[in-house]
């Protein structure tokens, strides 16, 4: 079976780079970028099964980025990460995210792995 290919997008570089490193140690092919603009560049020459997006980023939010990535890569799946304090805050802040998969920071890597499998299994 092919390894899962994941693109991580978060403007907190020290967070997203370390998370990518930890996923690599677990056999996931994880790339990371620190902005929505870089993510849109990245998908021009790479394919991903899944994108893990921070909700609040400069210029283009994770919610808007999801829409843009989905246009280019209709098969790509998404998980949101949010720094909001609670699920309630997250839903209040993003009406579109109601049906989406998401994790509240700090992210536990086992929960992320579980969510990733759940999202991809749903599509298989």
């Amino acid at each position: 079976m092919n390894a899962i290919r994941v693109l991580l997008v978060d403007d907190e570089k020290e967070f997203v780079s370390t998370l990518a490193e930890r996923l690599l140690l677990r056999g996931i092919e994880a790339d990371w970028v620190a902005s929505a603009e870089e993510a849109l560049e990245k998908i021009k020459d790479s394919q991903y099964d899944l994108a893990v997006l921070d909700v609040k980023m400069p210029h283009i939010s994770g919610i808007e980025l999801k829409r843009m990535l989905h246009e280019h890569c209709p098969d790509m799946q998404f998980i949101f990460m949010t720094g909001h304090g609670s699920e309630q805050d997250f839903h209040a802040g993003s009406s579109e995210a109601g049906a989406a998969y998401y994790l509240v920071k700090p992210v536990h890597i086992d929960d992320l792995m579980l969510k990733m499998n759940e999202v991809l299994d749903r599509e298989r």
Partner: protein
Amino acid sequence: MGIEQDHNVVQELRYFGRVTASISHELKNVLAILNENAGLLQDLCAMVNQGQPLDVTRVQKLSTTMQKQIGRGDKIIKRMNRFAHSVDHDCESVNLHELVTIVVALFERIATTRGITIEVMTGTSGVTVKTNPFALEALVGTMLDRLTAEAPAITRHSIDVSSHNTMGQIRLQGLVKQVHTVARVLDSDDLKALLGALHAKTDFRQETGELFIMLPDNITA
């Protein structure tokens, strides 16, 4: 309680809520970084237990990152503490430069998300006025929030303080392209109520894009 006082209380509480939400969001990011770094240390330990060599350079780098994030968290908490204590007194002597610096620092996360930079200029650092510190923070913070909400991305603003006659003066620059926004913001009832409570006035100079907030040197006089 009169309608104007109602406006003030609601506006101040909204500002308090926005600032604390922004601080908690920033602290969550600090915790997220510490969590990943601690997790990677555990991963490295597990690898050593399986017989792989320890990458000491990587461990040192992780330690440096964690110390840096602890420093960042400490700064955020100090700022939050300072902000929390600004509600202690209804009227006290306020250093305008210090107040503006703290408001801009509290607003930084939101500004960054909007692609906006706000620079506090050195200006005149010794200007003090006797006023309500929290109401003034709410006024300056709410103005920054509303004026930058529709600003074009990558906009730069600067803010400084000075004294003019017996008034303390806060000047926000970089609003040339936001003439209509400024007019709308200054016309809002809640900001008018806050300005009234502080006995403050505003002056917007369209041609230079400068907005002045003028404060009496003593609100009780």
